[in-house]
């Protein structure tokens, strides 16, 4: 659609600007303030320059948290994306059952994060949880509160349970847009199931799949509540991800300077990924509109 050039449109955007400035810019300025200053209370600040950044860049603790975070996000993507595609390919295409499946699949997405944690905390307990009890009954030594590996497995399975449906639903939306004629043509050509997937379904899903990967990356990168409820970041520090570490530092120990420097670096990563996301989105929009005009 051709847009009209009109700077008065700023008036329509003004309310959003005021509210987001209040809830994003002012707090962010506080963070910047803390990141470059040191304080001994009483609202007195001393210029600290890049000291905090220096401390954080060389902090063993941050490196470990970042390493765990990267590993977690990588595992999440490696499991959820292929599984999500697989599920999407098997979802019923239309009719009553497709609605039922959609609703059931969306259910985990709508559960408050801490309740997701509670559900898995209970589910994995060997005394009262179905999963823990079953594993204990068949002789597997499983205890997510003591064993770091078990804690990791629990947190990963929980995230797969929580978010795979999102990947699947996005892919499903991409699949729905493929005209039936494509499949009929493939059938006439006697294309194999793999060829249909590789040359028809995958290219059509490319856009939504990119969105799914970015969303999952972002959200797993800032995960806080679910692992916090299940493991509290433990045993030891084994499931302390970036956000958990940051909250520990800022609210728990009140190390404002380092925490603020940490926040700003965290934010830069977010900014970078958001930019990739935005580029993908706008390209996708353009592709769609040009396709619409072609018809």
């Amino acid at each position, binding site marked *: 659609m051709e847009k009209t050039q009109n700077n008065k449109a700023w008036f*329509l955007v003004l309310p959003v600007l005021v509210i987001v400035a*209040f809830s994003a810019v002012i707090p962010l300025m506080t963070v910047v303030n803390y990141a470059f200053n040191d304080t001994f209370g009483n609202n007195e600040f001393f210029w600290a320059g890049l000291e905090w950044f220096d401390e954080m860049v060389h902090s063993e603790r941050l490196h470990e948290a970042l390493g765990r975070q990267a590993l977690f996000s990588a595992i999440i993507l490696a499991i959820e994306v292929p599984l999500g595609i697989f599920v999407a390919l098997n979802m019923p295409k239309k009719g009553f059952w497709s609605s039922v499946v959609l609703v059931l699949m969306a259910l985990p997405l709508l559960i408050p994060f801490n309740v997701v944690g509670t559900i898995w905390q209970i589910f994995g307990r060997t005394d009262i949880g179905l999963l823990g009890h079953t594993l204990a009954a068949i002789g597997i030594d499983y205890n997510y509160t003591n064993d770091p590996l078990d804690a990791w497995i629990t947190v990963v399975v929980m995230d797969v349970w929580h978010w795979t449906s999102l990947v699947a639903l996005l892919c499903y939306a991409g699949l729905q847009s493929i005209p039936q004629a494509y499949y009929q043509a493939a059938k006439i050509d006697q294309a194999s199931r793999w060829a249909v997937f590789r040359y028809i379904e995958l290219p059509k899903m490319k856009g*939504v799949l990119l969105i799914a990967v970015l969303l999952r990356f972002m959200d797993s990168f800032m995960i806080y509540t679910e692992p916090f409820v299940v493991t509290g970041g433990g045993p030891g520090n084994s499931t302390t991800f970036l956000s958990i570490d*940051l*909250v520990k530092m800022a*609210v728990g120990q009140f190390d404002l300077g380092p925490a603020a420097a940490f926040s700003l670096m965290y934010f830069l990563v977010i900014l970078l990924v958001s930019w990739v996301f935005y580029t993908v989105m706008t390209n996708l929009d353009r592709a769609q509109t040009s396709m619409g005009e072609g018809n």
Partner: protein
Amino acid sequence: MRIKSQAVVMALYLLFLMLPIYWLLNMSLKTNAEITGTFSLYPHEFTLRNYRVILTDPSWYMGYVNSIIYVVMNTVISIAVALPAAYAFSRYSFMGDKHLFFWLLTNRMSPPAVFALPFFQLYSSIGLFDTHIAVALAHCLFNVPLAVWILEGFMRGVPKEIDETAYIDGYSFPRFFVKIFMPLIASGIGVAAFFCFMFSWVELLLSRTLTSVNAKPIAATMTRTVSASGMDWGVLAAAGVLTIVPGALVIWFVRNYIAKGFALGRV
């Protein structure tokens, strides 16, 4: 044969999704003695005691009331400010529009952990700590961008000729917007409202940081009461089940828009 294997895959996947939820529901209908004493796949001594505890004790049910108050406030604010902005983004190009649109996205993507402490200080200093409006405003951080993006996605589908015809017919902008345009994108407003509601409902970190007593959300009540009173697993499970109810009630109506909502209106 193919249809059969599809059904098996879906059945297994749905089983995997439903088992933990079933287990929570199962526990919420048991007595504590049965939960800790025996291992049963369904409640043998069926009881509604856990739900009765929650619905009669103000420290429990006020958690739900508080959550609903700030979630509704947030949804109304988000949609109200997002509607004109989304219209501007979908119809006009103006100075800095692309940068602004991008900046909104970064707010949706930013980790709440970064904002927890600054929010606490900001709302304490202006005397809004532990009020519903504080949480509602804090959640605007990610819900306003979300609403703008979703609504813009719906609005660009409405042909511009409709606007122009209305102006020629003598409609003023506000009247056109309310009488003609909003009914046209009613489903979009519904979807945006649903997602604002849900994202505010599931968020815990900010709502817990910004409240202590008067506006404490149900999510925080769950974490605190349980650690204080020991092991009342039945009540914990019942509280969990009740937090799933609002989403489960509305999801049927927006089932075809779930992917669209999560992808910020871009699918």
